[in-house]
């Protein structure tokens, strides 16, 4: 179940540390990682996951990390077997590129909008959907297609995950979240698509402090929150 009550009956999803929040992520897990480049990337959670030691991970994220931090640190440590992303090659993505050229990592390349929509489908209980994106290209090779609305569309399936690691700006103890500017990007859809969504938040605020009209991620999608500043 999504909601968890503490012994006193209060719903309180706040966890004491990043290490505790990622402790049960298992070898072989599929992990959604928020962020577009560095904006919204959950570096605290990613480094806690690095320390935790889980291996053979599938990472789903828009990019494949840059430098030697975050996703790139997990890649460099050999923890990632497979990556699903739209744009692995960015400035500083040398760790990924070396692994890829050496054939030591599997890549599933997905158009960015299809990546977002496949996670949205997972979170919203949609079994599959037809999209015009990618039709007639090598990224649709082998996929079922159909002419709809007068154009060829490709059947795409949801991406369900064990865990989502995301960064938010503010959170309350029920897990309601708001983000900051373009750091929002994939986090709201990822939160819906994973069995366990873990959030690093700049700030935890009292219940009721977030405007009910402006909450972006309802708490129902969140399991654990760590305040990281």
């Amino acid at each position, binding site marked *: 179940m999504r909601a968890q009550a503490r012994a006193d*009956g209060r719903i309180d999803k706040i966890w004491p540390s990043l290490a505790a929040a990622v402790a049960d992520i298992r070898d072989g897990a599929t992990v959604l990682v928020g962020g577009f480049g560095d904006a919204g990337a959950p570096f605290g959670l990613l480094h806690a996951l690095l320390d935790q030691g889980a291996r053979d991970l599938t990472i789903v994220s828009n990019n494949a990390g840059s430098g030697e931090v975050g996703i790139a640190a997990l890649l460099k440590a050999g923890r990632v077997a497979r990556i699903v992303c739209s744009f692995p090659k960015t400035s500083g993505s040398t760790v990924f590129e070396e692994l890829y050229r050496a054939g030591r990592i599997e890549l599933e390349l997905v158009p960015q909008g299809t990546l977002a929509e496949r996670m949205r489908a997972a*979170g*919203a209980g949609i079994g599959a959907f037809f999209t015009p994106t990618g039709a007639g290209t090598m990224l649709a090779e082998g996929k079922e297609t159909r002419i709809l609305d007068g154009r060829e569309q490709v059947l795409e399936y949801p991406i369900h995950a064990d865990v989502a690691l995301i960064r938010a700006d503010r959170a309350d103890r029920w897990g309601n979240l708001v983000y900051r500017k373009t750091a929002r990007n994939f986090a709201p859809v990822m939160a819906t698509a994973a069995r366990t969504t873990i959030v690093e938040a700049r700030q935890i605020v009292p219940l009721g402090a977030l405007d*009910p*009209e402006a909450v972006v991620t309802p*708490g129902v999608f969140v399991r654990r929150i760590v305040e990281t500043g």
Partner: protein
Amino acid sequence: MSAFRKYTPDEIAARIARDIPAGSIVNLGIGQPTRVANHLRRDVEMILHSENGLLGMGPAPPKGSEDPDLINAGKQPVSEVRGACFFHSADSFGMMRGGHLDICVLGAFQVSAAGDLANWHTGETGAVPGVGGAMDLAIGARQIFVMMDHVTRDGAPKLVAACSYPLTARACVARVYTDLATIDVTPQGFFARDLCEGLTLAGLQARTGAPVALA
């Protein structure tokens, strides 16, 4: 058959409320299930979902302070609790369909021994049908509880071998709370968890359209 005392609607609602764990995300269907809200434990937190776009639904406001923009799925005035949030209908039903609600309590015309639910249409010709969010809730929530009378006004069983009314969803009901008993719906059929005072299993079976055993 010996005399027995049926559960009152409030007793049924109280039994349902007792079975909802602290911290649950709950949707209470329109009609009878709305009554469950009055019996939820006040000393623990639960979050009520309303499919018209609200998580953190609170009780009806005092007379005179109703807000026409703040209603539940039955279109009655409600309130919002601290920690509530609003969202649009596609997001709300995505939340349901995606399996993010823990428990939904629905009314029903019939429940079959396979857990099929019929609660939206009598199938009569000329009847104006209306499905609302019933089908989405039935397939979406992790557990479906049904709250209904055990038999129709004419005495016909509403727990049946197979639904004769049009289905809402197949194999979705986990448990049925009636004025006579609480009944688990399992792969092996109906199992009664409790019976109202003075009712025997034979008495329950006589009013049930498919085999029922004690759990």
